[in-house]
């Protein structure tokens, strides 16, 4: 599954970006460039699905694919699929769970959701048999604090456990048997600690990466299940959407956004924030990606915007230099980038 993801992602890059861009997308790098790339190459659903992935592990996996003859790579680090790679990708039907990833909006949501749910299950299972001496599986203070206050809002933890048990059973029967087993193996309860990623990989004969992705996908699917069936008490575990969108705008871009909303111009913001023009422009491009209805009329006429959008469609290449060549010098890079951002929505 992980290898599939790599082949798929590199194909999407169309030989226009180095493999590092793919790494940044799946590990969820918070930079304007990466967010742009994710939109450009239609991989927003994979953005940030594997935050823990280390660069060395990614590079190792790429070089394995090269050794297997699925990829070739040039000096600039740009990879192209070989015929064999293309064939594998075609034969390897997109597994259902890959579709579970729905992109930027849900990436962080699933992580927080799974952390809260797993720690609540462990805590409640222990308290239900009156054991308050256990090692919490999650040491993140924010998660612990959340579970604590959730616990204080609960009247009857046994009914909570029974309810959750029924919902999880129903949910797990809708997914693959192996996937369900991995999901349950990972949970901790009373005097029973969940399996590590390595242990699950060993047991199910998968790579660590595959186990990670399977677990992440399961939680995405579970969120979907909870939302579709409107299971209110479990929906509480899903963090607020609004908070999430904000997270995909860098802190600095958020500040710029505040100033723009207060009516300051780019030139004024440059002075106020003591930043370079190019930085402020980066922020605005980033905002254009994150906020679909952002008003761009201060930077580009609607007519011009439409013209660039038309050109992009025709040449089907998202490299800035290519587009610039096509539309000529009439537009600045900044304007073209804004158009590309607009095109992503």
């Amino acid at each position, binding site marked *: 599954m992980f290898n599939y993801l790599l082949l798929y992602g590199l194909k999407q890059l169309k030989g226009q970006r180095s493999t590092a861009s793919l790494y940044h997308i799946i590990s969820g790098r918070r930079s304007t460039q990466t967010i742009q790339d994710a939109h450009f190459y239609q991989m927003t659903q994979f953005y940030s699905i594997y935050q*823990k992935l280390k660069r060395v592990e990614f590079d190792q996996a790429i070089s394995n694919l090269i050794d297997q003859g699925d990829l070739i790579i040039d000096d600039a680090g740009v990879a192209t699929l070989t015929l064999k790679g293309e064939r594998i990708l075609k034969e390897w039907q997109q597994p259902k769970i890959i579709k579970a990833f729905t992109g930027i909006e849900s990436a962080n949501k699933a992580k927080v959701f799974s952390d809260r749910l797993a720690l609540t299950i462990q805590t409640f299972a222990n308290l239900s048999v009156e054991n308050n001496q*256990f090692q919490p599986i999650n040491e993140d203070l924010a998660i612990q604090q959340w579970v604590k206050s959730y616990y204080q809002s609960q009247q009857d933890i046994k009914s909570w456990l029974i309810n959750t*048990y029924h919902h999880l059973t129903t949910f797990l029967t809708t997914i693959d048997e192996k996937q369900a087993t991995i999901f*349950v193996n990972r949970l*901790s309860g009373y005097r*029973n600690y969940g399996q*590590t990623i*390595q242990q699950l990989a060993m047991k199910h004969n998968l790579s660590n990466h595959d186990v990670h992705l399977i677990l992440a996908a399961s939680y995405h699917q579970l969120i979907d299940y909870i939302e579709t069936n409107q299971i209110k008490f479990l929906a509480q575990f899903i963090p607020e959407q609004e908070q999430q969108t904000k997270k995909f705008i860098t802190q600095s871009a958020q500040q710029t956004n505040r100033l723009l909303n207060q009516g300051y111009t780019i030139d004024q913001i440059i002075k106020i924030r003591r930043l370079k023009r190019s930085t402020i422009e980066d922020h605005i491009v980033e905002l254009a990606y994150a906020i679909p209805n952002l008003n761009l009329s201060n930077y580009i006429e609607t007519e011009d915007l439409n013209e660039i959008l038309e050109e992009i469609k025709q040449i089907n290449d998202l490299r800035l230099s290519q587009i610039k060549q096509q539309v000529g010098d009439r537009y600045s890079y900044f304007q073209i980038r804004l158009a590309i951002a607009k095109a992503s929505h």
Partner: protein
Amino acid sequence: MNQLEKQLNKYFGYPTFRPGQKEIIEDILNGKHVFATLPTGSGKSICYQLPSMMIDGKVIVVTPLLSLMEDQVKQLKKRGFKQAVAINSFNTTVERRSILNQLDAYQLIYLSPEMLQNKYVITKLRQLKISLFVIDEAHCISQWGHEFRPDYLKLNQAIEHLGDPTILALTATATPDVQKDIINHFYKIKFTKHIYPIDRDNISLIVEQLNHRSEKDAYLINLFQKWSVPTIIYFTSRKEAERVATLLGEKFSQLSVSYYHGELETSERLLIQEQFMENQIDIICATSAFGMGIDKQNIRLVIHYHIPTQLESLIQEIGRAGRDQLSSVSISLIAPNDDILPRRLIETELPSTEMVESLFASLLHIQQSETTISLNQAFIHNHWPINEVQRRFIQDYFAENDLMTQDGRIELHKIIPQIKHDLIKRVEQRSRYKLGKLDELFQWLTAKECRRQALYQSFQSTVREAKYHCCDQCGFTLEQWSPEYGKRGRELKSWQAQLQSILLPFESGGTGHE
């Protein structure tokens, strides 16, 4: 039940004390300074943890083992005692500030020795009433101890600053010479001594001389065909730990085998530790990172696939077996050239002559433009391929010889060529010492006499007789062994059943334990 036992039961759930604990605690509560040697696994920490829950003032514990203090704080919290805290380099500056600003909320405060050099920390501590000051791993004071820590030499000063509280100096492995060293160092303090033998009479000792790594693998496979008891197998190399864990896991599908080393993520390490505690794991293949602070009672077998660099470490690792005092076994596997790995390890713990030369060349160069410079990691990494242990060695040397300013910067005008020669001499001396310790270990491994006598005789005047079986030299073979341990029910098959046991433990009424 008397008062102390009641407290022990209340806080820890043990009905009785282990040998030594009660005597030590009574002396402490009576305000006597105590020097104590207690074997690994005898519950040293109870000696100060219990008083901290009973007495009025604060208890400070100085220990160089950062993971141990973190583990102990975690364990205490797990037991419901929240007033324990660890202050060390793991904390971020913000965390440390916030802890120090509400220090009064804690009863038991763990500190790394270098934290006591920090003026701000001392100022904060001085505002508290310190009733007990614990020096854990007290052998670190001795230059001849196997883990000498120059920071420990400054503890006298800290004790004075804190208004001369009651002192408890604790160690698990100290030869009589090292014991004398410790007591002499604190010449102002009149200690009541509690010397308990460190020999473990319930652990039987075996050394197997084999010809090759493949024979070690075969030995293990043969062993686990007959025995399946809670086991730790120690390795020096992470890769080997992983390899053998995979090998055993494939060979024995009915056994649960895992590996553990410092490269694993903290949250995953935590799961493995707890699984081992709950008997979910039968065999753990680990580096020396595993074991400190793990209070598992029924480990029956400790195997050394690789040996450490000195007897003291070996004794500590063996001592993790059989804390419940039931019959347990230690097996050391050795093959030709097994000294290569520990020798290399010793090398990486000391700076090389080239490193020292290069450092001094740099310092002499900087001398022309600067007056002081910090010997921090960044500085060193830019100049030499040097690791943290080596860096500390150099820094300690500079500190001891008064070449550093108050805030830990090198005073460049004091750097003269003679210092370089002295430092190189010190490295050579230390290296000889460590290689000597390694030789001692090999002498033990190859000796023809009783292993128990040979292992413990330098630490105590008499060695007790074995409670169950002595050692291979005295005629013990594994065939004579009948270990006791609580078996765990096998893992439930279907995910449905597993989910039920996790979410509804009150219905199944079970934990999976037989």
